């Protein structure tokens, strides 16, 4: 059994001459909950679609459960649960018919779990999919994905369009069921709070490039935001590398730096600041800093 459930090697995708993914390499180990972040159009959905073999890559390779995505066998597909962005279920089918179709085509079907989820979500079986609300469709999609007892669950912005309560319920259920069974989740979202709550590893896609790929703790410890008060006017240049963002006003400077270390600390101290305090950063702050144009690339785990 491969250690990495998902692997990508130098994945490149062009669409109508536009670069959507630019050399993305990624490995998601078994049992990991991987939060994939990125702004709209950053390439998250394309990456997931390539992973599932729904879209051919321009260059590079992707592997799911040890198999090339473009040649995924039906057996491997049966081990992957997928909740698509916008919950693209067959709209004109009634819930009952869609469930029967999925049950019939699946390699394994956990009727007990599925029944429990349908009851919990109070999903009507005799209504057409198109008549369901966005929240109900999301819940049905999740229930269908979970009923096959997937080894890998891929959730592509699953909470998009859901209200707060439905979102919370959806996430808790996804985490509860999958974590209890030691499954792997790839979770794409731009709702940072959701990702922060459940992910143990984070990837940030910016304009098709994976600029961050590390654990949440590493990410938080690696990026520092400092509020520095200088004795006189803040200097124009601190001669520090990997500055993500810098804002100066009078004696005060707010500096965001990647890979903060004693060397950088020493360089800063040559300017004899009166005061230097670290400002706490949430994942949202880090995300905003990382996705600003011309962001310094945060080195990945192997480079640390």
């Amino acid at each position: 059994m491969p250690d990495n459930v998902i692997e990508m090697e130098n994945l490149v995708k062009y669409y109508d001459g536009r670069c959507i993914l630019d050399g993305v390499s990624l490995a998601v180990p078994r049992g990991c909950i991987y939060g994939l972040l990125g702004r709209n159009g950053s390439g998250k959905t394309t990456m997931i679609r390539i992973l599932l073999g729904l879209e051919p890559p321009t260059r590079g390779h992707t592997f799911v459960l040890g198999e090339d995505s473009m040649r995924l066998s039906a057996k491997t597909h049966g081990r992957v649960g997928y909740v698509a962005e916008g919950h693209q279920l067959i709209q004109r089918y009634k819930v009952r018919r869609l469930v029967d179709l999925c049950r019939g085509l699946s390699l394994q079907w956990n009727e007990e779990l599925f029944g429990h989820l349908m009851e919990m979500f109070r999903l009507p079986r005799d209504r057409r999919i198109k008549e369901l609300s966005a929240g109900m469709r999301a819940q049905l999609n999740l229930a269908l994905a979970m009923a096959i007892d997937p080894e890998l669950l891929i959730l592509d912005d699953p909470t998009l369009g859901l209200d707060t309560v439905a979102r919370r319920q959806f996430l808790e259920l996804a985490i509860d069921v999958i974590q209890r069974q030691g499954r792997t989740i790839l979770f794409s979202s731009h709702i940072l709070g959701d990702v922060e709550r459940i992910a143990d590893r984070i990837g940030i896609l910016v304009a098709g490039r994976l600029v961050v790929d590390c654990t949440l703790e590493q990410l938080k410890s690696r990026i520092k935001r400092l509020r520095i008060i200088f004795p006189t006017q803040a200097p124009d240049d601190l001669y520090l590398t990997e500055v993500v963002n810098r804002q100066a006003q009078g004696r005060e400077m707010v500096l965001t730096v990647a890979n903060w270390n004693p060397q950088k600390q020493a360089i800063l101290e040559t300017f004899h600041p009166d005061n230097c305090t670290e400002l706490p950063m949430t994942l949202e702050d880090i995300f905003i800093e990382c996705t600003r144009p011309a962001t310094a690339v945060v080195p990945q785990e192997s480079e640390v």
Partner: protein
Amino acid sequence: MRRFLILTGREIRDHAGYFVAAVLVSALAIGLLTSLALEYSQKAMVQISVAGLIPETIMLGLGFYAFGTGQMYADRTRNLSAFLTALPVGRGQIFLARVFAGVLGLLLFLVPLTIAAAVLLELRVPPVPLYRGLLPDLFAGVFLTCLACYSIGLYAGWSSRAVLVTVGALLLVVLVPLLLVIKGFGAELVVILLLFVTASLTATWYRFSSSSL
């Protein structure tokens, strides 16, 4: 096999209208053939049947073209294959089940009609070997012509260049039945149509298997 049957069942249920139409048109054709056999002389019956064969085949071809287009267009616009391939189903299985459903639709139309024609020939036409031998050739010719039109429909339905492909495909659908006139019924026609069907199904499969879902 179980999955293949489920997928075929899904195709039939989703396009039930075409199957009902195939049965109704077949019943109508049997009715017409029977009334011809009862109303006209043996010679006139054969002449009228043969004379009407080309326009009828063109109309049938258009019908099966619409069936093929409908199957693929519905898939493309409703993201059916995208949903199905997220389940343990390959694109090959989806495509095969689709074509199998199309062939079933064709047989649903042609088999009762052929049986009725055979019975009427037996009852009303003298036992001339020429007439007896005509029926298998007729069946093969019409079946393959309709299958060719259906295959063109599959190709057109999956194409996003709608206008260009539709015009070209419709032109082919009208031209293919004319092969019956040009080549006549027989082995040569069967070979040409088989090659045409193979080529158009291969082209459709290539597009279907290599495009984004």
